[in-house]
């Protein structure tokens, strides 16, 4: 009966899909496009450099972000301000000696590094360590599918648990939390040695970290509790088990009718993935990287799967009502009713629409957890989430500028 009165009556929002197929291996890439924004290219890496799997291409100055490694054998065809392009080469068809012997695996678990040393070692293996948690009392591993339509969480917890176990072992050695817990969807019977599992009602948006923490602890934004995604733990475990730098990511490739989970190389071109998954597109379709509620749409088929991306979806033309130009807010209040943080997306979207970002402050825009439900229920088809993100970005910029001290003009002698 509750469903009748509920705005969301979409079975896909129940994040348990009874998906238990093993992850498939993605296609062998013909081309790779790696995002290098913020990275410093290591000396010697330039156009026409021959690269091999695991070869260090670029380092990130921040300790939080993993370094960039080549995922395949190939030649660098171009390096520009945003990307590194690699074209695949068959290692058996080139002169012997072009590529060095395969990398020696590093056994992080056996090595026994702990604390900050381990964090640095993991960063050098290409894992983003920021996503693996701040220094807190309790760290909760979010074992739910992050968004509706993304379906790798269950097989990751059951069929691919070796990586999770290894990842959690390293996570423990980071010593960033006194206690680590695992939140799993209710009804999912997962037991991992030495870790407490908590069952969570698997209805989206409960998989959003802030809301998952509330489900587990019963408190909203409690201090000393942080969350890390299962996807990140899996990547960490993958590095621990293979001993090689992180070169792949798990994604769900989905359309309205079909879906499957794949392990794909970082930087895989989406056009190749579509071809591999035998999905044909028509004009007017939308392809998106990330999840269907929070992801980003891509404009061209030669865009790539970035490191840490967890999904790739196709939304066919006509599947959702089209957005028709600037549609004014009609005050229907659906976003207010659905918002899990009890803020007012209606007013926030209007403030951003008319450039009054400062007004967003009194509507608690920083509490937005980015779940996307406001746009999902908007009957006027307004880009509500995008407006809120715009306000957050503008105000962040403003606050950053206000912290700078103005430069005094140098007095002429």
């Amino acid at each position: 009966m509750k469903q009748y009165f509920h705005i969301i009556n979409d079975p896909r929002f129940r994040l348990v899909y009874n998906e238990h197929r093993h992850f498939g291996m993605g296609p062998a890439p013909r081309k790779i496009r790696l995002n290098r924004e913020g990275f410093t290219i290591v000396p010697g890496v330039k156009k026409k450099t021959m690269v091999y799997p695991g070869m260090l291409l670029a380092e990130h100055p921040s300790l939080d972000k993993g370094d960039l490694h080549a995922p395949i054998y190939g030649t660098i065809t171009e390096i520009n301000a945003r990307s590194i392009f690699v074209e695949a080469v068959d290692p058996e068809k080139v002169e012997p000696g072009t590529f060095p012997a395969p990398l020696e695996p590093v056994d992080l678990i056996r090595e026994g590094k702990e604390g900050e040393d381990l964090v640095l070692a993991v960063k050098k293996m290409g894992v983003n360590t920021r996503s693996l948690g701040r220094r807190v009392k309790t760290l909760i591993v979010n074992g739910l599918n992050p968004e509706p339509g993304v379906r790798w969480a269950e097989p990751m917890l059951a069929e691919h648990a070796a990586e999770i176990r290894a990842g959690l072992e390293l996570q423990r050695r980071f010593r960033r939390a006194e206690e680590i817990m695992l939140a799993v969807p209710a009804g999912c019977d997962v037991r991992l040695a030495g870790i407490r599992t908590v069952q969570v009602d698997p209805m989206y948006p409960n998989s959003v970290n802030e809301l998952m923490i509330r489900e587990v602890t019963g408190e909203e934004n409690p201090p000393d509790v942080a969350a890390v995604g299962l996807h990140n733990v899996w990547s960490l475990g993958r590095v621990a088990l293979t001993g090689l730098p992180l070169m792949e990511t798990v994604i769900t490739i989905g359309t309205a009718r079909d879906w499957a989970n794949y392990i794909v190389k970082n930087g895989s071109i989406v056009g190749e993935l579509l071809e591999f998954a035998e999905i044909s597109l028509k004009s007017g379709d939308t392809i998106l990287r990330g999840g269907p509620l929070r992801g980003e749409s891509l404009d061209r088929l030669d865009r790539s799967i970035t490191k840490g991306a967890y999904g790739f979806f196709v939304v066919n033309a006509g599947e959702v009502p089209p957005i028709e130009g600037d549609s004014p807010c009609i005050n229907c209040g659906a976003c207010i009713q659905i918002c899990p943080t009890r803020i007012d997306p209606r007013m926030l979207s209007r403030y951003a629409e008319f450039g009054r970002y400062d007004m967003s402050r009194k509507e608690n825009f920083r509490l937005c957890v980015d779940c996307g439900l406001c746009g999902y229920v908007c009957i006027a088809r307004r880009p509500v989430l995008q407006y809120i993100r715009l306000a957050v970005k503008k105000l962040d910029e403003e606050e950053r500028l206000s912290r700078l001290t103005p430069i005094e003009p140098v007095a002429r002698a």
Partner: protein
Amino acid sequence: MSTSSNNDILLAISTPPFWHCGRTIRKNSLHTLIALTPAVIMSLLQWGMPAARVMALAVLAAMATEAVCQTLMKQKLSQDNGTAAITGLLLAFLLPASAPWWLVVIGAACAMGIGRMAFGGYGANQVNATLVGWAMIFVSFPFLMDPTASQLQTTLADPLLKLKYFGAEAVADISVIDLLLGNQLGGLGSSQVGALLLGGIYLVLRGVVRWEIALSFLGGTFLAATCLHFVDGSLYAGPFFHMGTGSTVLAAFFLATEDSCSPHRRLPMLLYGLTGGILVVLIRAFGSYTDGAPFAVMLINLLAPMFALIRSHPFGTGPRKAGSADWRTRA
């Protein structure tokens, strides 16, 4: 097939979320029109062609007024989303079937022009547009708006008029079934109580209108009528009489629930509906008008921003005193 090399596909770029619940203004309007259909049929059976004339005229006049205003305001024409048609139809429901054509046109033009477009368009008005139009012609031409005075070729009586001038005992023998079947004199659609109830429940189950408002509006009417009935049963009629007469049901499901004029959170919605329901009975019992429902809805529309101030503290912030320095508690 090679999609990666095929560059003549033009992909659509959009913003998240990429999935959508599928509801649009047009679909909601369609559901509302479906919900109003039983009442339309019942009123046609009751009043015949004159009712059809008033309804068609009101719908057309409302849509034409909206089109003219939108042209003058250089907005995109939006008659296809059906909201103007609903406003016109609801206005017709409040009129007697005998209303002259110019009255209907003036009412519909005022509803759309002053009630809605003057505020900027659909969803921007603070008071229900239908009721603005209705109030203007009701106050200006009370004789023509009164079905008892203008609807001469009928044997039906207005139960609210009976109640006002002959007391509760005169209406004690009116059965609820008769009221539900529309055997009463009133607005051509608003008196089809049973049909409207059916349509209203359909809308609630569809999630187009919020059950909190409809339920608490009827609950408020019930509560206030019961209290007064207990105080003096010979002066004040019982709760089911008040819920079944006039335009209480039309107001509860179709007028008070207009999204832009009502609060959006649960507790404010319940209080809003409850206040409306109580006002209906108070206006009928102590006011000079026989039917209090339209005025009650207009009053609570104006109170809606006040009710909307009641809101729970935002996520992760504790309840704190109003006016404290912390920016997170400012409503």
